[in-house]
């Protein structure tokens, strides 16, 4: 138990003297084999390789390719957030929602805008 990280008390400023005491203690309270993490790692590698292969070896036509890639990107993002970023594990999950919304907003904005910007008929590419 001594190695377990103490979660700071909830609330925006609830930080007294107790937390910096445990400032660096890693969270190693998992007695069982981390099946989920290993599966998640394998899956995210697989998705990356499949995406790469689809583009490199022209498995499917361009129109469907873009759709499939976008879908795979979402799965990849969900994997990372859910398994490795501990999205469901921390206390106060509600706090994550505005931050996630902002990230989604900026992420989708960047991709959407980039597609809009690059739509012109370029003489170079």
């Amino acid at each position, binding site marked *: 138990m001594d190695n377990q990280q103490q979660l*700071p008390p909830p609330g*925006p*400023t*609830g*930080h*007294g*003297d107790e*937390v*910096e*005491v*445990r*400032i*660096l*203690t*890693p969270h190693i309270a998992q007695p069982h084999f981390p099946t989920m993490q290993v599966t998640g790692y394998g899956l995210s590698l697989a998705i990356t390789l499949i995406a790469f292969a689809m583009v490199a070896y022209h498995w499917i036509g361009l129109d469907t390719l873009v759709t499939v890639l976008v879908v795979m990107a979402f799965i990849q993002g969900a994997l990372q957030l859910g398994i490795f970023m501990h999205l469901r594990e921390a206390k106060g999950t509600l706090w994550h929602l505005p931050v996630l919304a902002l*990230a989604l907003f*900026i992420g989708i*904005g*960047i991709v959407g*805008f*980039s597609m*809009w*910007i*690059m*739509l*012109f008929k*370029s*003489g*170079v*590419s």
Partner: protein
Amino acid sequence: MTMNPWILHLMKRLFPPQVLLPDIIGIDIGLTIAAIAAIVFLTKTKRWGWLWREWITTVDHKKIGIMYLLAALVMLFRGGVDALMIRTQLIAPHQHFMSAQQYDEVFTTHGTVMIFFMAMPMVFALFNAAVPLMIGARDVAFPRLNAISFWLFAFGAILLNISFSIGGSPDAGWMSYPPYSELMFDPGVGENYFLLSLQVAGIGTIATGINFLVTVLRLRAPGMTLTRMPIFAWSALITSSLILFAFPPLTVALGLTMLDRIFGASFFTLGHQGMPMMYANLFWIFGHPEVYILIMPPFGIFSEVVPTFSKKPLFGYEAMVASLLAISILSYGTWVHHFFEMGAGPGVNSFFGLSTMLIAIPTGVKMFNWIFTMWGGRIRITVPMLWQLAFVPTFVVGGATGVMLATVPADYQYHNSYFMIAHFHNVILGGTVFGLLSGLYYWWPKMFGWKLNHRQGVWACLLFVVGFWLTFMPQYFLGFQGMTRRMSSYPPGLGWTALNFWSTIGAYVMGVGFLIMVYNIIWSRIHPDWDTTGDPWDARTLEWSLPSPAPEYNFARIPQVHSRDEWWEMKQEGRTDEVKISEKTVHAIHMPRNTPMPVLLALAFFVGSIGMVFEWFWLAILGGLGVVAALAYGSFANYSEKEISRDTILQTEAQLGRLES
């Protein structure tokens, strides 16, 4: 004697003709002598152990801040020498001080060093020095990660800086646009250095962003609500979130270019359906927020400096926070203004032109806030305040010319001319650098315990500012007269000669200003004016309630915050004894232990990067294994904290005169 062909090949790769110029060899010899002298000095004075224990393995944010600051000043020198070389080449028509190739290398290094290895670390230096202290914390949220960030930056900087003497400098500009930066047009290892060094330093930067985001959100002293937080802490919070969103696109752009150059992919190549323009798009998705990453911290610094030296609370705190937030959101929607000429349709260009102009509004709001703070205040002209006063007009001019550039049809004329060069130097030098130097003079006593001499500081500032205007005003007119950026020489008879001459003189004046600043630092170190009060400026925020420099644990007792400008209120209400401790109130404090893991991790990255730069994949794999080993060591090592006992704290605080009587 016949030479082994393998060694011959290696020597050719390490020392191609472009690094065998007499001046470069001269610098190599000078640096080698300096390095030997340093080693001899450290050995003679038996300082190696001290260096290792006190600095290299430290996780203390105050020391990491000092290391960032020294590194940034060294890089300012290096980038400044590059700048003087550029200006010397352009002092008169048809100069051949450097070859065109060397000129390209020098301006590329200048831009890259100044943005990534001078301005960014100086920002982090001040974050580390001030933010934990002003929010009442004992360290950043992740002290070991903080050390990792620093060492990744340091080894990234070393990587870029050795390129000119080993293998050859990058030469494709600080943004390294393809197709020129691709293997086909730019063989050699220079561009690889650029890609790898920014990648390594960039990992550290993202980690710093996460660190300060969490620090500001989670480690504030009790009672310090977000709306009681000093604006500099706000700017650290917002800068960190900008970093978090802006750096990944850069990572992607650099990574894909690396795949192109080293593994024969064709993301941005001319052939094989590559799309060079996608690089410009990705780069500026990063690049525009990056310029705001550089200007937000100075905004925060001025919001501390102006109230302190006007003896008034900041005018319009809420407006200040709101405009910081507005700028951070807007700065994500303007990046196309860096490539209006690429050929996107009028819809795209109008949208981004308008969004760019919108940014000028919240920026203007802040200007008025500072001016109204000074209005009717009792202003003391100290060196930090002097830099602020110099900043106001320069930044107004920079912002106004920015709006001119955002006018799309006009930008077809201005783009990549000296007009644009003058614009961004107005905002980056006149904004970011003036702000950082203001912060340097402001927090210096807190970092080191002694003040910088006032008179020398004034001279450094005045010369720098005069030199600044003399350098960049002519460049606006050069832009109007058609001089484009990155010309390595120009013919006479175009009306450019006199303007270029004065611009170069201005650059030399700035150089003298910088030298006086260095003299100022060294002189003040030798004749220290000790800050015994901890509050030399009669300032307002919590860091000034501590002794200078703060003890290892910062606060013997975490303060309870009741208002904005808490320390000022304490002084007004005669509550300053609250920071003192007694036998009864003191507790033992646990602090993280030093660890060699950060520096070893960064070293492994460095070794691996050298492997990638020269395409020695065995070395790259070795470096990669080193990274994994360092991470594994970091995960499994025992991180029991060290305890600072009550007695030690009582003793330390008693020496500082901070025991309740």
